[in-house]
């Protein structure tokens, strides 16, 4: 990842430190170059702890449910990740997706063909996110404020459009993402899980294997330097928010598979939950460092904690406590490695 690849100065042999210290330094470098490493270790550790602490946790059905539970937030967090990588943040993302579910469902109920209804949902989500992008890019407004305003606007629009009522999604293409598949006759999959996985690979490739992706990191590291290097920062930012909007629409579709209804009250904390996944996943809130691998791991960690703690018979409030502490640890870890590698 750009900015973290600064090679440490070669020390003359006489000044080399002890073997343990060197090993620790090497480990630190490894963590700072691959931000997803720490979260992945944490995820594996959590799985091991819960597998020992509960006799119902280590089970293929359970893992299937854990993934199903994290799919919508993980997808919202994919969009959130690319925005955070540019040094921004999106507080409106979950409500944009809720608006998407309402548009997709209500237009279908009104007789619009499902494919067109889905396309309309994508369009609405992409346009809404693009408005935030436009304000951030062209007027250089802080994304925190822009998307805070957008959150309020979209909440109001969703309430007006839904008349405050939950709309049931008719079976078919709209709820396709919830359709169950069975591997070897017993391992449960949903189409949504496969779809989200494909989406994740697509975003990962775009971020790590294209010029566009490199520019995202460049802007997050130093927007001014990126501009001087010939990157059209404004156009890039607009495209980042537009793409994020499309990803939110995918989250909306996935959500209709999971709970086949469009509810204006759903995902009220989805914005914070998606930021939680991003931060636990090791992406820096200051931009330029991290990526979607960590985000997916971060989303899984949250679901694993909920599942594992429930199965150990631990109260919901303690589950929130554990998640909160994890966020703080993740941010502290980010700051620590950032300072060391600076």
């Amino acid at each position: 990842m750009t900015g973290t690849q600064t090679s440490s100065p070669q020390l003359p042999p006489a000044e080399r430190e002890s073997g343990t210290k060197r090993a620790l330094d090497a480990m630190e470098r490894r963590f700072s170059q691959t931000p997803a490493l720490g979260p992945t270790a944490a995820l594996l550790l959590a799985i091991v702890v819960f597998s020992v602490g509960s006799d119902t946790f280590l089970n293929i059905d359970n893992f299937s449910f854990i993934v199903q539970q994290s799919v919508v937030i993980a997808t919202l967090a994919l969009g959130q990740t690319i925005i955070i990588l540019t040094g921004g943040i999106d507080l409106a993302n979950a409500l944009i997706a809720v608006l998407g579910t309402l548009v997709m469902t209500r237009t279908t109920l009104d007789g619009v063909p499902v494919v067109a209804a889905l396309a309309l949902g994508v369009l609405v989500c992409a346009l809404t996110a693009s408005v935030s992008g436009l304000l951030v890019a062209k007027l250089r407004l802080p994304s925190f404020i822009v998307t805070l305003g957008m959150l309020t606007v979209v909440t109001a629009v969703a309430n007006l459009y839904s008349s405050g009522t939950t709309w049931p999604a008719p079976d078919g293409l709209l709820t396709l993402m919830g359709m169950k598949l069975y591997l070897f006759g017993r391992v449960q999959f949903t189409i949504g899980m496969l779809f989200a996985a494909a989406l994740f690979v697509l975003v990962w490739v775009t971020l790590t294997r294209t010029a566009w992706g490199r520019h995202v990191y460049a802007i997050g590291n130093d927007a001014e330097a990126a501009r001087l290097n010939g990157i059209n920062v404004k156009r890039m930012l607009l495209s980042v928010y537009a793409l994020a909007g499309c990803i939110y629409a995918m989250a909306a579709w996935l959500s209709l598979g999971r709970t086949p209804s469009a509810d204006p009250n759903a995902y009220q904390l989805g914005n914070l939950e998606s930021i939680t996944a991003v931060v636990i996943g090791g992406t820096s809130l200051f931009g330029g460092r991290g990526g979607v691998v960590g985000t997916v791991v971060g989303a899984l960690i949250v679901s694993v904690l909920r599942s594992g703690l429930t199965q150990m018979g631990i109260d919901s409030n303690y589950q929130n406590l554990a998640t909160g502490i994890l966020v703080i640890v993740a941010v502290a870890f980010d700051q620590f490695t950032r300072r060391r590698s600076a």
Partner: protein
Amino acid sequence: MRDNRPFHTRAVAALAVTLTALAAAGCSTERAASSESPSDDGEVKIGLVTKTETNPYFVKLRESAQAAADKSGADLIALAGKFDGDNAGQVTAIENLVQQGVDGILITPSNAKAILDAIQEAKDAGVVVIALDTETEPRDAVAATFATDNEEAGRTLGKYIDARLGDRDPKVLMADLDPSSSVGLQRHNGFLDGMGLTDDSDAILGTALTQGDQGKAQAAMENLLQRVGKKVNVVYNINEPAARGSYLALKARGLADDVLIGAIDGSCSGVQDVADGKFAATVMQFPQKMAEQGVAAVVKYAETGEKPSGFVDTGDMLITDKPVDGLESKDSTWGAENCWG
């Protein structure tokens, strides 16, 4: 923030921040600003403060209050918190209504205790305050409460489920609300009482806090089912959205037909779920009665100075298509004619 930008950019930024702040302050600010000179024009003014503006239950409550107010020529001002649990939003709403010179405030408190100071201030200003749907703690913080007896509603559901179980030992999972809400606790306690259980009974295999949200209930139930497996035969739910989440979790494990799912609410979609056989039963509440009686009480107070008092049970009704002996119930057809939302 760097400040080498042209002035107009900064001006736009300032404007945007201001607009956001205004938007965040919400409609209550607008209302306060545009309030006419209080009272004295002869018209009875009634304030309604619900938990949220969007929950269909509160939408029904508001519509019914509006209809009742229109009928008696009163003016209704409806405000709400932003989300269930938005105590600060409810306090702001009460303050705005007092400023506007209302004769009475009908409120569904998000929290039984958190808004008592604001209610006291309203009472000091000569406004009669009536709780709808949810009690305050203590009860006499308000003049009167028009509500479902939530403990009784829970008990009704518990008795029914107990009867349906027959000789089988109960194995119960509970999708609760939130520890800060009295409604959740009352229904929970009532249900256990109706089942003949207590909180430390071995029959309770697990509980979860769901905030009455379908998605949260579904995830919580999936996790609980992972722990308890096929042992469960009863799932209690604080409301119908939670019950729908539980149903989806049970269905995913192929248990939906073997487990008695019970809910409390009485919305039209919940009644439909009873008709479809997804829920064994739901207990219907009557928000329309709460609203009508609340509006009538304020009008009476404005005209005669007579305050309502005490707890007025607006009733509940067990809705099921599989009735049991000795327990009054109505079928889903009746339910569909009398449901809300």
